[in-house]
């Protein structure tokens, strides 16, 4: 090697550069959460359902009845521990006037009832998806999941897993405030 050393033979740097590149990819990969699968339904009209309303006998609610107004659809279950993490945030949002529909997923009525009694009820209506069929139409693959549907009936946003204060503030509240200005 000449007196100019390493820099006269840049080929020696190739393995190092390759290493840095590969390490970079791995570092980026570690930061990705592979359990979050993007939904193809964002920007599309919310899938229709007609489901019984919790504790209202034969009363049902359909997406047609929700049409024309902004709403948040929250998929939850009383057996879902992670739903506890977000519940206070949902109650807080409902106190600020955000209309939230609860989709009670594969739950027992007794459990759902007790949950709402014990932790507060953020939902203006709770529909019961006993066999999870409506949830499949909405592309739900776990609880909790939260959708934002605008006045045109289009899904604007989906959050997978318990919502965080940031999601509540930046996504839900901001879209809700924007929708109020339009109407």
């Amino acid at each position, binding site marked *: 090697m000449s007196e100019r050393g390493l820099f006269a033979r840049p080929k020696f740097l190739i393995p190092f550069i390759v290493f840095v590149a590969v390490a970079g990819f791995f570092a980026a990969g570690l930061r990705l*959460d592979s*359990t979050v*699968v993007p939904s193809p339904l964002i920007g599309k009209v919310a899938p229709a359902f007609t489901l019984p309303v919790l504790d209202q006998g034969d009363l049902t609610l359909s997406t047609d009845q929700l049409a024309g107004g902004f709403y948040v659809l929250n998929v939850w279950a009383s057996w879902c521990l992670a739903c506890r993490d977000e519940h206070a945030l949902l109650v807080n949002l409902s106190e600020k006037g955000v209309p939230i529909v609860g989709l009670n997923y594969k739950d027992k009525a007794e459990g759902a009832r007790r949950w709402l009694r014990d932790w507060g009820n953020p939902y203006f209506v709770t529909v019961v998806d006993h066999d999870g069929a409506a949830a499949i*139409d909405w592309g739900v693959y*776990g609880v909790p999941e939260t959708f934002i549907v605008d006045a045109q009936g289009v899904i604007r946003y989906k959050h997978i897993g318990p919502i965080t204060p940031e999601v509540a503030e930046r996504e839900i509240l901001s879209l809700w405030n924007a929708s109020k200005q339009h109407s």
Partner: protein
Amino acid sequence: MERKQTTFLNKVQHLFCMLMLLIYSLSANAATEVLEFNSPQQEQQYHELIDELRCLVCQNQNLADSNAALAQDLRERTYQMVRSGDSSDEIIDYMVARYGEFIMYRPPLKTSTYLLWFGPLVFLLLAVLTVVLFWRRTRRNTGVKLDAASRQKMQQLLDD
């Protein structure tokens, strides 16, 4: 199937569970459901579909292998659609409309998936190219040329 916010401990827990599942799965298979079909073709269609479709909860399993509640539901849905005479394309479209192309173990060939499909081939070609270049280089270098002085010195050493 319920989610928690991931922490480092969760990841360790996750890894441990996966390991236990791996060990467990050596001796057990996913429960086989007893299903009736209208024809052997339908049965074959059903089994092809649940082999092709990915479980979204345990992402490294297909619907056939997974015992997750959602996988059971999606198997059931697939079964009903097969029974009612839907084609495989219709069933896959139905799943993709809800869960996205992620649900397919063989994603379609398009611009965003070129890297996925051809990436391994590109790496193979790069590897072959590297090996070929390396071979040619070393073969060329084996013919060591000596100048007159060294040759004389060598001869002297050999003679001694």
